[in-house]
């Protein structure tokens, strides 16, 4: 019989904690997903706006980026959840306020990623597209962006992990996420060490999951532009087992030992 990791029948502290932590983990995942979608949906247009040849458009993008990068997510969260109702009389749902704050904040960082990736596409590509009389929109859509996409993935991976971890701030406005549930368990007497260890583990698993997904996407994107994916040369370099050289054998004082046998250490056979 298999027991679900969220089961209350797990032994000791685990049985006590896991049902609550699982509930919190779902909320954390939802917030991460919502925040990611929003952040990416913001990053793409704002990143492109930041490169517009119209000064006013650039200015709007810059103001947004600087403002949301330059202020704390937590404070933004307070504004959206506590201060907004006072100013506008409109109370946001707390999960929604959380997702909004995360999306806006990480979207600002993401815009910078998009801008950098688009600028890194070689000038020759843009010029070839002009020479073929593509419209500015088609240039971006069919030539530049598909090539820029692959460059966005590794920094986006970082941002999404940042976003995952930042969801723990939602516990401050009493969203019942993973961190909130963990704190609650500890306050009601569960073993601190085990609960906090579980929190670490779950956050880590989620962030690793994000990395795996992004690696997969990167591999697909790389193949589309005919390049090696993340499994390409740089990684293979440290992954492949180094050929074991019988280095130590040189160090062995070879006076006593017949020289013919010295190099034959296990690795060399």
């Amino acid at each position: 019989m298999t027991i679900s990791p969220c089961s209350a029948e797990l032994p000791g502290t685990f049985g006590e904690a896991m049902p609550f932590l699982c509930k919190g983990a779902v909320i954390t995942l939802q917030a991460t997903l919502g925040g990611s979608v929003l952040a990416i949906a913001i990053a793409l247009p704002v990143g492109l706006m930041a490169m517009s040849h119209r000064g006013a458009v650039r200015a709007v993008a810059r103001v947004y980026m600087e403002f949301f990068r330059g202020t704390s997510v937590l404070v933004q969260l307070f504004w959206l959840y506590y201060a907004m109702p006072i100013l506008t009389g409109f109370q946001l749902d707390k999960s929604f306020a959380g997702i909004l704050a995360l999306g806006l904040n990480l979207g600002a960082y993401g815009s910078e990623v998009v801008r950098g990736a688009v600028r890194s596409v070689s000038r020759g590509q843009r010029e070839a597209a002009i020479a073929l009389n593509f419209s500015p929109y088609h240039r971006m859509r069919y030539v530049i962006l598909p090539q820029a996409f692959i460059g966005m993935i590794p920094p986006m991976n970082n941002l999404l992990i940042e976003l995952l971890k930042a969801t723990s701030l939602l516990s401050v406005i009493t969203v019942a996420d993973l961190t909130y549930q963990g704190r609650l368990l500890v306050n009601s007497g569960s073993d601190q060490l085990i609960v906090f260890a579980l929190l670490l583990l779950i956050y880590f698993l989620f962030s690793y999951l994000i990395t795996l997904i992004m690696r997969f996407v990167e591999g697909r994107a790389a193949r589309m532009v005919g390049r090696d994916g993340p499994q390409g040369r740089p990684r293979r370099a440290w992954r492949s087992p180094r050929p074991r050289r019988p280095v130590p054998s040189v160090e062995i004082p070879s006076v006593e030992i017949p020289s013919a046998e010295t190099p034959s250490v296990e690795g060399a056979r």
Partner: protein
Amino acid sequence: MIRFDKVVKRFGDLTVLRELDFHVRPGERVTLIGPSGSGKTTILRLLMTLERVTSGTIDVDGQCLSHMKRGDRLVPADERHLRRIRKKIGMVFQQFNLFPNMNVLRNITEAPVRSLGVPREQAEEKARELLEMVGLADKALEHPSRLSGGQQQRVAIARALAMEPEVLLLDEVTSALDPELVSGVQDLLRDIAHRGDLTLLCVTHEMRFAKDISHRVLMFDQGRIVEDGPPEQIFSEPAHQRTREFLQAVLDA
């Protein structure tokens, strides 16, 4: 077809073209030669609207490249005006610049489909004919990165021709190729050139090739035309000391 009138191009403090005047007739094939930095490539880039003139005007088919009429006034050209003129001009680059996110066939069909509105099937049919012509019919579904430099450049030529330009600009198209691949590309261009009707502007350091394809050779130095004449004359009895020196240096290399 193409007229340069007192064209000046400066990059910062550097003056690349100094009051340049010249004229290319429809169907004429002109080769631009001269030391590097003499402004040859800049001329092609200005025509392709990759750069803007500092002063002076360029006309293509009677239309001004940099300005357009709005009412009675001349205003800087907008994107639509530029695209109308670009339609007549194609360019092949030294570095090929094939799109790595598309296979060979898509590289050729994408522009006709997106910017001319040709139906995809028709564009593909045309592309396959062009690939046949450049000798790469079997590479249609290959990825550009799997082709040799020479093959990539031939695809780039097919891609430019798919837009049916009236003027084709060749910017040192064999300079980035391994020596043994140069002749294949040159033979192809020779065929295309001798088919007629295309107006050709070609920047090259391959003097034999220049001689084969062009009606006229312009020798540039320091942003000016030093000598202008048929290839036979320029290559066998150049009138100017500067041309003689240049040809000497190129032929010795």
